[in-house]
C-alpha cells in the first residue's frame, strides 16, 4: 500500500513535470553550509572544508540527480519529455501528421465500427441465465441436406426423456397469429413454448407466473411481452387475469415477461403453451437444452446421435436419415449473420493492414529525411535505444490520435449502420449496438498493436546505420537514390491487398447486379399486395373461406383504379420453400415411404395473367374452377419437366393427402412459366398451384394482390378498407407494392456488396495514397538526376515515362500477388450470398483495370512534377 502510494506520488511528479522544479538545490546547499561550518570549526581552511564536505556528499550534481530520480519515475520522466518533443515535431510537419493520423483513423474507425456490431450480436451474452450452457438442437436430414430442421412433438419428447446430457430440454415454435385486445386486432409475432421453457432459459415472467404443465382440458392462457403489455394495458398489473383474443379465442393473461426479453431475437409479443401433437411427420419445433455441468458439447452430440439412431430404427417411416445438430444457442440465433459479420470483420482488418502499411511507409520516408537530425542526436550521445524510444513515442502519438479519431468515426457510423440493417437482420443485440467498454478496449488494443506494427520497423530502420555514415550521407542530399526496399515492399503488399479486396467487392457487386437483372418470371409493376391472416377457427369450413375470398375480391376489384385482383398463398420471392408430398395417378412413388415432392401454392382465377406469368400449355385457374366443379391444378414448367418428362401433363391426375384419412384428386389443366418463388438467387422448383376456391389444405396466411392503373402505393389505404369491409376480423399484417417485395428480396446481397465495395474502395484510396507518397518521395530524391537528364536533352515525356514506369512496376508486382490471393479469397464468399461466382474472369479483369488506372493517376502527378524540374535550379542545389 505504502509502496503504491510512493509510486503514485512519483508518477504524478513525472507527468506534471514537478520533478524539475524542486528545492533539491536549496536543501543540499543548506547541508553543505552545516558541514563546512563544522569542518572550519574543526580547523580546516575554508577551501579544504568545502572540498571535504563535497567529497563526503558524493558530489553535488550527482546527489541532486539521485534525489530527482527518487522524486519522479525516470521512465515516465523520459516519456513526458519524448511526448512533448513528439507533439512538437508532429505539429511542425502538418501534412505528414494529418495524412498519417487520418489514414490510421479510417483503418481503426472501420474496425471499431464493425466490431461494435460484432460485439453486440456475437460477443455480448444473450439475456438468458448462463447462456453458455444453452444449446439448440436441430433436426438434420441428409437427403434434403437440411441442417437446421424442426423436430416433431413426439420426437422432442423422446429426446427429452432419453438424453443424459441435458439438465432440461424445452421446445418452441414461431406462431404469428391475430392478437385482439379490446381496441384492435393485429397480427402479432408469438411463440408456442413447452411449459418448462422459462425454467430452461432461466428467465421468469416479471409479473404473474409461468405456464403449468399442459393438459388437454387446460384453459387457454397467454404470457405477454413487456412491450405489448405497456402498449395495450398501460403497464398495469391488473392486466393479469384479463383476456386477449388469439385467433379469436379468449386467452387469460397469466404473466408478463421482463423488458427486452427475447428468446432468439424475434421480438415476440406473446407466448402460448405448447399443446400435444402426435404427428411424427410434423417437424415444427425448435429445441433448446441446458447442458448438465461438466458435460461437453461433444459428449452431448454423441448422446443425441445415439438417440436419433435408435429412433431411426424404431420409426423408419418418419425418422429415416434424421439426425441431430447441436449448436450453442448464441451461435444458433446469430447463425444467419455470423458469416457475413466475420467476413466484413476480416475485410476491415485488411483495410487496417493497408492503413498501417501506409503509415509505416510514411514514417520510413520521414525517417530518411530526418537522418541528419538523428545522426546529430546520436553524435551528441543519445543511445540507439533512446532514439528508437523517441521515434516509437512519435508513432504512439500518431496511433493515439488516429485511434481516438477512429473511435469517433466508429461511434457515429456503427449505430447508423446497425439501424439501417436492423429490420433485415432479426438477431438479438442489433438494437443495442453502442460504443461500450468492450469497443473502447478493442480500439485501444488495435491502436496499440497497429501502432507498434507500423512504428517498430521504421524506428529501427532509421537507425540501422552508423551515425558517421548517416551524417555524411545526409549532407549529400542529391545522391540519386530510389526508395528503400522496405517501402517498395510495403507498397506492393498494399496494392496486392487492395486488389484482393476490390476483387471481393467486385464479385459481390456483380452478383448483386446479376440478381437484380434476373428475370423473376413475372411483372412486378403496378401491383400491390396485402398479407392477410385468416383466423382459422371461423374459417375452418371451405365455404366460409370461399365466401370471404369472393367478397374481398369483389370489393377490391370495384375500387377505382384497380384493374384486377386475385388471391395467392405464396407470392414470389418470399423466402419460403416448403414442399408437400403427393402421388401421381398411374405412376409409382419414387420411394416406398415418400411420394413426389413439390411446392403447393394456391392462386385464384386470373392470377397468372395479372402477374404477367406466361401460360405455356392449357389454361390457368379460372372462375369456373369453383367449389363443386372438378378440382384442377396448374403446374409450372419445372414440375412438368420433373414429373412428366417428354409427355404432356395436361389431363393427368395427382393425389394430394390432406390428412391421415382424406386426400384430394386434382387434374392438371395447364402449365405456366417458372417464377423465382423463394428468392432471385434460387432456381425455380416444381410447383403445383390449386384454386383456393377448391383447396382443402387449410392455411391461415394468404395474400391478396391487386393490379392498379396508377401508382400502386396510392391504393394501400383503400385496399385495407376494402378487405376490412369484407370481414373486419381478418387482420392485415403487411401492405406493400410488389416492386418493393422484389427490391427487399435482394437487400442482403446489396448490403454485403455495398459494404465490401465501400471498404474495397477505401483500400484502393489508401493504397493509392501510399503509392503516391512513395513516388513523390522517390522523385524528390532523384531531383538532381532528373536535372542532369533534362540538361542533357531528355524530353519531358521521357521523364514522365521513367517515373510512371517505376510506379507501374510496383503496381504490377502488387497485382500479380493480389490476383493469386483474390483467387483463393473469393471462394469464401460463396457461402455468404446466393449466386456468387468465384474467380469470375470479367471481375478480375475489370478490377485490375481499375487498379492500374488508379495507379497511373497516383504516379502521374509526381511524374509531372519530375518532368518540370528546372535543371539549373536542381544542379545549383548541389
Amino acid at each position, binding site marked *: 500500500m*505504502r*509502496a503504491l*502510494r*510512493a509510486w503514485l*506520488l*512519483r508518477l504524478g511528479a513525472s507527468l506534471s513535470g514537478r520533478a524539475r522544479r524542486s*528545492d*533539491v538545490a*536549496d*536543501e*543540499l546547499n*543548506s*547541508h553543505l*553550509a*552545516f*558541514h563546512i*561550518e*563544522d569542518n572550519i570549526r574543526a580547523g580546516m581552511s575554508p577551501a579544504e572544508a568545502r572540498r571535504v564536505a563535497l567529497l*563526503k*556528499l*558524493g*558530489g553535488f550534481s*550527482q*546527489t541532486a540527480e*539521485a*534525489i530527482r*530520480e*527518487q*522524486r519522479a519515475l525516470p521512465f515516465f520522466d523520459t516519456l513526458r519529455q519524448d511526448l512533448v518533443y513528439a507533439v512538437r515535431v508532429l505539429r511542425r510537419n502538418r501534412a505528414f501528421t494529418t495524412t498519417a493520423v487520418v489514414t490510421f483513423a479510417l483503418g481503426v474507425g472501420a474496425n471499431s465500427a464493425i466490431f461494435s456490431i460484432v460485439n453486440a450480436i456475437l460477443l455480448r451474452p444473450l439475456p438468458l441465465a448462463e447462456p453458455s450452457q444453452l444449446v439448440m438442437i436441430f433436426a438434420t436430414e441428409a437427403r434434403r441436406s437440411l441442417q437446421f430442421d424442426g423436430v416433431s412433438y413426439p420426437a422432442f419428447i423422446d429426446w427429452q426423456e432419453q438424453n443424459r446430457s441435458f439438465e432440461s430440454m424445452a421446445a418452441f415454435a414461431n406462431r404469428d397469429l391475430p392478437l385482439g385486445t379490446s381496441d384492435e386486432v393485429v397480427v402479432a409475432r408469438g411463440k408456442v413454448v413447452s411449459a418448462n421453457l422459462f425454467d430452461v432459459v432461466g428467465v421468469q415472467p416479471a409479473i404473474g407466473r409461468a405456464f403449468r404443465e399442459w393438459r388437454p382440458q387446460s384453459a387457454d392462457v397467454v404470457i405477454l411481452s413487456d412491450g405489448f403489455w405497456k402498449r395495450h394495458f398501460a403497464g398495469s398489473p391488473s392486466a393479469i387475469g384479463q383476456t386477449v383474443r388469439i385467433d379469436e379465442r379468449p386467452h387469460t393473461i397469466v404473466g408478463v415477461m421482463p423488458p427486452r426479453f427475447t428468446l432468439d431475437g424475434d421480438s415476440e409479443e406473446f407466448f402460448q403453451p405448447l399443446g400435444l401433437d402426435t404427428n411424427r411427420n410434423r417437424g415444427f419445433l425448435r429445441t433448446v437444452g441446458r447442458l448438465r455441468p461438466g458435460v461437453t458439447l461433444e459428449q452431448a452430440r454423441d448422446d443425441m446421435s445415439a438417440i436419433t439412431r435408435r429412433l431411426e430404427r424404431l420409426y423408419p417411416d418418419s425418422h429415416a436419415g434424421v439426425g441431430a445438430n447441436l449448436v450453442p444457442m448464441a451461435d444458433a440465433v446469430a447463425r444467419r449473420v455470423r458469416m457475413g459479420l466475420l467476413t466484413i470483420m476480416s475485410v476491415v482488418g485488411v483495410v487496417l493492414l493497408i492503413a498501417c502499411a501506409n503509415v509505416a511507409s510514411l514514417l520510413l520516408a520521414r525517417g530518411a529525411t530526418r537522418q541528419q537530425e538523428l545522426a546529430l542526436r546520436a553524435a551528441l550521445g543519445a543511445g540507439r535505444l533512446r532514439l528508437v524510444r523517441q521515434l516509437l513515442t512519435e508513432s504512439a502519438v500518431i496511433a493515439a490520435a488516429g485511434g481516438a479519431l477512429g473511435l469517433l468515426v466508429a461511434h457515429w457510423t456503427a449505430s447508423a449502420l446497425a439501424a439501417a440493417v436492423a429490420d433485415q437482420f432479426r438477431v438479438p443485440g442489433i438494437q443495442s449496438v453502442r460504443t461500450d467498454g468492450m469497443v473502447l478496449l478493442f480500439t485501444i488494443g488495435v491502436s496499440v498493436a497497429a501502432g507498434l506494427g507500423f512504428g517498430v520497423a521504421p524506428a529501427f530502420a532509421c537507425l540501422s546505420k552508423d551515425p558517421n555514415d548517416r551524417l555524411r550521407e545526409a549532407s549529400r542530399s542529391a545522391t540519386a537514390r530510389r526508395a528503400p526496399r522496405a517501402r517498395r515492399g510495403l507498397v506492393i503488399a498494399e496494392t496486392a491487398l487492395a486488389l484482393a479486396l476490390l476483387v471481393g467487392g467486385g464479385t459481390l457487386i456483380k452478383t448483386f447486379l446479376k440478381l437484380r437483372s434476373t428475370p423473376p418470371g413475372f411483372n412486378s409493376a403496378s401491383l400491390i399486395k396485402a398479407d392477410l391472416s385468416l383466423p382459422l377457427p371461423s374459417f375452418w369450413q371451405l365455404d366460409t373461406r370461399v365466401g370471404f375470398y369472393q367478397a374481398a375480391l369483389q370489393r377490391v376489384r370495384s375500387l377505382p383504379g384497380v384493374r384486377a385482383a386475385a388471391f395467392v398463398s405464396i407470392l414470389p420471392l418470399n423466402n419460403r420453400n416448403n414442399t408437400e408430398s403427393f402421388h401421381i395417378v398411374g405412376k409409382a412413388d419414387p420411394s416406398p415411404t415418400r411420394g413426389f415432392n413439390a411446392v403447393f401454392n394456391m392462386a385464384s382465377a386470373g392470377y397468372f395473367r395479372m402477374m404477367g406469368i406466361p401460360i405455356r400449355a392449357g389454361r390457368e385457374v379460372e372462375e369456373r374452377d369453383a367449389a363443386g366443379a372438378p378440382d384442377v391444378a396448374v403446374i409450372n414448367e419445372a414440375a412438368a419437366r420433373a414429373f412428366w418428362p417428354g409427355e404432356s401433363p395436361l389431363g393427368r391426375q395427382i393425389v394430394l393427402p390432406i390428412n391421415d384419412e382424406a386426400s384430394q384428386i386434382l387434374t392438371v389443366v395447364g402449365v405456366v412459366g417458372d417464377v423465382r418463388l423463394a428468392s432471385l438467387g434460387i432456381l425455380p422448383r416444381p410447383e403445383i398451384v390449386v384454386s383456393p376456391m377448391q383447396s382443402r389444405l387449410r392455411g391461415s396466411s394468404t395474400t391478396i394482390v391487386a393490379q392498379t392503373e396508377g401508382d400502386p402505393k396510392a391504393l394501400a389505404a383503400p385496399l385495407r378498407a376494402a378487405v376490412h369491409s369484407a370481414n373486419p376480423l381478418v387482420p392485415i399484417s403487411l401492405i406493400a407494392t410488389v416492386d418493393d417485395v422484389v427490391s427487399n428480396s435482394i437487400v442482403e446481397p446489396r448490403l454485403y456488396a455495398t459494404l465490401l465495395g465501400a471498404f474495397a474502395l477505401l483500400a484502393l484510396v489508401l493504397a493509392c495514397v501510399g503509392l503516391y507518397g512513395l513516388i513523390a518521395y522517390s522523385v524528390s530524391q532523384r531531383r538532381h538526376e532528373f536535372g542532369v537528364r533534362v540538361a542533357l536533352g531528355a524530353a519531358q515525356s521521357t521523364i514522365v515515362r521513367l517515373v510512371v514506369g517505376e510506379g507501374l512496376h510496383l503496381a504490377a508486382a502488387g497485382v500479380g500477388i493480389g490476383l493469386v490471393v483474390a483467387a483463393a479469397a473469393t471462394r469464401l464468399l460463396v457461402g455468404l450470398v446466393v449466386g456468387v461466382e468465384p474467380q469470375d474472369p470479367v471481375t478480375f479483369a475489370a478490377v485490375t483495370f481499375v487498379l492500374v488506372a488508379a495507379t497511373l493517376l497516383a504516379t502521374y502527378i509526381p511524374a509531372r512534377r519530375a518532368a518540370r524540374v528546372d535543371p539549373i535550379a536542381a544542379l545549383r542545389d548541389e
Partner: protein
Amino acid sequence: MADKADVWQGTLALMVLKTLETLGPLHGYGIARRIEQTSAHHLSLNYGTLYPALLKLEQEGYVTSEWGVSDNNRKAKFYRLTRAGRKQLEKEAREWERTTAILARFLTPGEEAP
C-alpha cells in the same frame, strides 16, 4: 581501527526513523552526523545517499518535511516522524531483532557443529 562498514541497503531507513524518534525533528545533516556518532564512527555514511532515502520515506508517508530555522540560525529542511513512521519503526525494529537473534544462534558454536 578496522575497516568502516558500509551502510546496508534497507538499514539506513531504520536508522533514520530511529534517529528522528530519539531526537525529534531534525535536518538531513543532523541525521547524518547522529548516525555516524551513534555507530561510534564505525559506519561510513555517504551523505549523498541519505537524501534519496529521506525522500522515499516521505513518499511512503513515514516522515514529513518542512523548511525551518536551525539553532545557529541557518535555513534547513526539517524532517519529522509521522504516526505511520512510528509504527513502521516498531515493526522494523522487531523484525531486525528477530533476524539478528536467529543469526546469532547460527553463528554461536553449537553441539552438533563438527
